[in-house]
């Protein structure tokens, strides 16, 4: 069964050059700056799923949270349906939050262990001023049904559920107020392999039935390929490649993307290929390399890569890459 999705061109979310620098205290008390986001820009179109991928420490989760203003950016603009979120008054922002929700990685940590499931699911309605209790109850039953849980589980507590079921409850909470945008931050990484497919399928169903756009954060390249229309690859707080998923996976342009794809262990013996050897570790985001941030590990680097920073440029229609050698 293939689900048809209408991807219209209107941008739902436009992120322009956002930066986030954290101040961290070192062991001896000195202040250091962590360069978590170093100017990223992307557009999420209405009905689209955009994947943000990269290794831990690349800034993908910071980006996800900044977009929802759960973290305030150091600089940049975030436009949601042409409204600048950073300029909104608090009350306006709060009411807009109905439309933009988040699903977290760890379903055990993101649900209050002392609250019953029905109370957890009623909370969004309470916060956003719904007052009719019997209507709310009805909605909660509907939500449980939508995520594949039965209504007689409503009076249980989180510890009585498995990880996969808890993630369904987290999803039910996120869709309670009919959002247009869901930021899903590694929604299946904490789940068992046999459960991941169930949750991904649920997210696909909801996309279809509720016209949701997703910003999907993940380090799992295979799941991203399956789930996302477009993909942005991040490295040390910057987007190094951004393209539709097919060209990105079939013809990766940035050497980092190439290395990431080649490093994935595959169960298909035919995909075994000569691996691009990437030496060394991710540099410390408190001590960023000069020039292209990837040059310290890049197998094809040249002199200019050590000196100047490549910008994200359109190498071919719709395919953006930040690499001097692949422009």
């Amino acid at each position: 069964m293939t689900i048809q999705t209408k991807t219209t061109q209107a941008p739902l979310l436009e992120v322009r050059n956002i930066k986030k620098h954290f101040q961290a205290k070192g062991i001896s008390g000195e202040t250091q700056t962590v360069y978590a986001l170093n100017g990223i820009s992307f557009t999420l179109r209405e009905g689209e799923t955009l994947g943000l991928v990269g290794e831990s420490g690349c800034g993908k989760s910071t980006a996800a949270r900044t977009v929802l203003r759960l973290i305030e950016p150091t600089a940049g603009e975030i436009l949601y349906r042409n409204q600048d979120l950073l300029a909104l008054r608090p009350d306006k922002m709060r009411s807009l939050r109905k439309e933009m929700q988040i699903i977290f990685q760890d379903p055990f940590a993101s649900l209050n262990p002392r609250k019953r499931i029905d109370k957890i699911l009623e909370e969004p309605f309470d916060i956003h001023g719904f007052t009719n209790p019997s209507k709310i109850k009805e909605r909660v039953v509907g939500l449980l049904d939508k995520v594949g849980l039965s209504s007689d589980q409503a009076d249980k507590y989180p510890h009585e559920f498995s990880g996969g079921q808890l993630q369904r409850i987290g999803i039910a909470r996120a869709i309670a107020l009919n959002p247009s945008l869901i930021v899903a931050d590694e929604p299946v990484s904490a789940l068992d392999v046999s459960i991941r497919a169930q949750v991904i399928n649920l997210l696909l169903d909801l996309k279809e039935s509720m016209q949701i756009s997703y910003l999907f954060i993940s380090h799992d390249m295979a799941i991203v390929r399956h789930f996302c229309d477009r993909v942005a690859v991040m490295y040390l707080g910057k987007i190094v490649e951004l393209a539709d998923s097919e060209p990105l996976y079939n013809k990766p342009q940035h050497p980092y993307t190439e290395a990431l794809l080649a490093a994935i262990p595959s169960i298909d013996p035919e995909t075994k290929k000569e691996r691009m050897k990437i030496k060394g570790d991710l540099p410390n985001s408190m001590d960023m390399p000069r020039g292209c941030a990837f040059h310290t590990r890049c197998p094809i680097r040249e002199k200019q890569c050590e000196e100047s920073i490549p910008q994200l440029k359109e190498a071919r229609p719709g395919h953006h890459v930040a690499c001097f050698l692949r422009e």
Partner: protein
Amino acid sequence: MPTPELRVKNLKVAFTTGDEELIAVHGISYQLNRGETLALVGESGSGKTVSALSVLRLIPEPPGKILSGEILFDDKDLLKLQAKELRERRGRDIAMIFQDPMTSMNPVLTIGEQIIETLLRHTPLSRSGARVKTIDLLNQVDIPFPEQKLDQYPHQFSGGMRQRVMIAMALSCSPRVLIADEPTTALDVLIQAQIIELLKQIKKESQMSILLITHDLGVVAEIAQRVMVMYAGDIVETGPVSKLFRASLHPYTSGLINSVPALKATPQKNFRLSEISGTVPSLSQIPSGCPFHPRCPSAETRCRTDKPRLKEIAPDHAVSCWLHP
């Protein structure tokens, strides 16, 4: 004919919670051959880690308890060894690496001291000899500037480097068996690829046998020759990796393989992944009959009542499923 290095017979392990005794491993038997990498695959709660930890009697007792079974190494039952004899074996003959290298190292000792300690315990080397050997080991696992790194503390290393140190520590006494419990799960994919290459290279240079515990079928395909799939405390299928991934017989194995999206083939956009319905049963509620039957697309009446036994279907390929009696 492969030479068995380690033989596990009818291993049964339980955990006590309150006044309930929960069986985590239901009497499993397998052998690890000399020079091979055997992968133990399963989801959380399948008993894969418990059955591997039992080999070195590293299960905390209580609440854990090895109820029965034999673990034969050099024709001696490790389960019957005196504590002192077992300590001699641990680290020297059978070494272990863990998922999280940070919590398995001592944070207040330099990594050099930790490796030297192992060497002094198990080899006749002097302290200065052990230091030279340690530098050698760090070199072997590709740690740059080993002479300086030796005197640093675990927190000064990245996750990947720490895992390399763990591997150096495990290799220090040239063990015959290495038990690796999810050695790459906590690592990013580029670093994971480096560690897999390192393990392969070590294997090439020695006759060491590796028991690899993982949930990642991709890692299995990269590095193992044989695989055992565990579900709810039982081995449900075992066979050569090439065979198992091409023609798995147990519906659970097939389900696991199919639920991983293919990276190579162009997926149809928004195509639903094939999923295994239901959830992994908790130890206190293991279903009757075949424990997989509530989630099995091909379950028959018999599967609900009678538990199938692991049976050899083809040479070296065994499955416990009523579809293949």
